């Protein structure tokens, strides 16, 4: 995804990635969040991203020269070192004994259970989220409309 020159290809790769993550959520018995992942990420956010890519008409990505200065190289080296370390650990670790899925895991991810938690214990954060979304709507409209 990060190696593609064309941002549209990056976006399509990211959509595939999101769908795979939704399947992993299903594997983890989180049904509601798997559906939300598809609807919100691939349905709303990525459509918005692709819409903006096409709106800005960035087909000639090659003009956008990718310079490689020292800062960027150091960052990339650190990140790829971390990736190699993860792969090393993954290959040479023993996963035979570990925690098992919780016996009640199937009942946790249901709409009913998450709804009870959202409107019970987490009622205040839920309401604050609605305020955040309202602020985001207003901010997006004003930013995209006026000259800054």
């Amino acid at each position, binding site marked *: 995804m990060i190696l593609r020159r064309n941002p549209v290809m990056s976006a399509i790769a990211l959509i595939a990635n999101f769908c795979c993550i939704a399947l992993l959520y299903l594997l983890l018995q989180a049904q509601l969040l798997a559906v939300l992942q598809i609807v919100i990420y691939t349905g709303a956010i990525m459509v918005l*991203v692709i819409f903006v890519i096409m709106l800005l008409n960035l087909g000639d990505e090659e003009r956008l020269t990718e310079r490689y200065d020292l800062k960027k190289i150091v960052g990339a080296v650190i990140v790829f070192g971390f990736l190699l370390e993860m792969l090393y650990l993954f290959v040479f670790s023993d996963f035979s004994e570990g925690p098992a899925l919780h016996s009640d895991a199937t009942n946790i991810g249901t709409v009913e259970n998450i709804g009870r938690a959202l409107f019970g214990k987490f009622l205040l954060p839920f309401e604050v989220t609605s305020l955040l979304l309202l602020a985001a709507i207003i901010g997006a409209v004003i930013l995209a409309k006026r000259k800054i």
Partner: protein
Amino acid sequence: MEVPLQYYLFLSAIMFAIGVAGVLTRRNAIVVFMCIELMLNSVNLTLIAYSSFLGDVTGQVLVFFVMAVAAAEAAVGLAIVIALFRNKQTINIDEINILKW
């Protein structure tokens, strides 16, 4: 036969590293933005994995809030990208330095 918890954590760590690599190396503002989404998703995966393995609903509620914040961030971030492009005709983040002193 179920997937062990460690696999999810490794996948999450690797996805996060790929997102960080994208943010550090790419110059296209929209690609940087998508890499941030990738990092948010890797954290979500960790939260849900722990939530299912520990039998606690809190992790999934937290993922719900992260998704809401990500949607808000997407709207505002893309609006900023459009406004910047309208003013400077570029979305190369090396050329956008009006907030630097």
